[in-house]
């Protein structure tokens, strides 16, 4: 979370001077080295983990074996006692005591291996989180750096006159004006098309004897006849 604040301070601090590196390349290299180291540490930890887990399983099997053996000897000791063979029962008891010491040692070892496995797993989890965090930070730094460098080129391009930056409202007006001109042109061309096709339609109608002018001759003749009758 701290990183966001650092980046914010850096951007706000150097915002007026574009193109300045937020974190120098040395800083980025240190971060990248930390990521590589962390990845290496994970690889080693994972190898260790397999070894320790194998030892833990081994200890578990040893415990099972010892418990089984103890149970067997106990049953033998009981048989000896049943036969009132105290001396033999005593010898078996000695053997059981010896096995119990070994069993305790194995149980302690297994506990230690289990604790080790847990701590290595936790370490791997934390390292993964650290790598994710560093990678995100690096990506933010590189993006910021890239944007600042790009902005420097763009600003030089704009200020250099090869692409004048016109005030936004004026740009909008010019673009709207061109769009209006374009749509006027299209409207005019549509009107023209309509008129042209309309004219030809009139001609066709006339030729077919349909429309206002078609029976003009007849109308004139009738008007003249009517005039003669009244005169």
């Amino acid at each position, binding site marked *: 979370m701290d990183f966001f604040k650092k980046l914010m301070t850096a951007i706000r601090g150097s915002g007026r001077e574009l193109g300045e590196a937020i974190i120098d390349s040395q800083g980025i290299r240190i971060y990248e080295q930390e990521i590589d180291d962390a990845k290496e540490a994970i690889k080693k930890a994972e190898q260790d983990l397999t070894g320790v887990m194998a030892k833990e399983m081994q200890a578990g099997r040893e415990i099972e074996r010892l418990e089984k053996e103890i149970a067997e000897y106990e049953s033998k000791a009981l048989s000896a006692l049943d036969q009132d063979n105290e001396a033999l029962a005593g010898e078996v008891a000695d053997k059981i005591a010896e096995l119990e010491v070994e069993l305790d040692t194995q149980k302690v070892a297994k506990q230690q291996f289990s604790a080790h496995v847990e701590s290595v797993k936790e370490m791997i989890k934390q390292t993964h989180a650290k790598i994710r965090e560093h990678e995100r930070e690096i990506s933010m730094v590189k993006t910021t750096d890239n944007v600042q460098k790009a902005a*420097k080129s*763009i600003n030089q391009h704009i200020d250099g006159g090869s692409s004048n930056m016109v005030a936004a409202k004026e740009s909008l007006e010019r673009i709207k004006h061109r769009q209006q001109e374009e749509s006027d042109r299209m409207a005019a061309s549509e009107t023209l098309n309509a008129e042209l096709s309309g004219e030809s339609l009139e001609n066709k109608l006339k030729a077919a004897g349909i429309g206002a002018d078609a029976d003009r001759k007849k109308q004139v003749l009738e008007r003249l006849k009517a005039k003669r009758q009244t005169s």
Partner: protein
Amino acid sequence: MNGLLEKLETVLGMPDTGTLNGFEYEFNPIPGDVEVIQVVFKDREELPIYLTQSDSQMLCICYLWEEKEIISKKRSEMLEVMLDMNISVPLSSFGRIGNRYTIFGALSLDSSAESIARELTVLSDNALDAIDAMSEYLN
């Protein structure tokens, strides 16, 4: 990694000039420390889009207005409106680089031709709409 221009041409399957979603366009590389391509749409020459890429994303940036164009007593209201509008504007967000306000969109480096074409044309439309909508805050 291929250069941005080669990539655009490969992805879009077009040379430096052509038509994108019905817009005639022109790609112009801009000299500098990092690769920047200026995309100019015909009849929208005043609002070119600048494309650049970092190791994690491709950025399409359109410069809208400068700090000096803002009516000073309306500045904080304008900033609030931009912040409020940010989430609703499709595919683009407002930003500021130095003293220039921008509208921009970010794309994954492996974006398809359709996504890039859509981003560029939507950004251009958004830029026009944004200036239109924010005109009351500008001189």
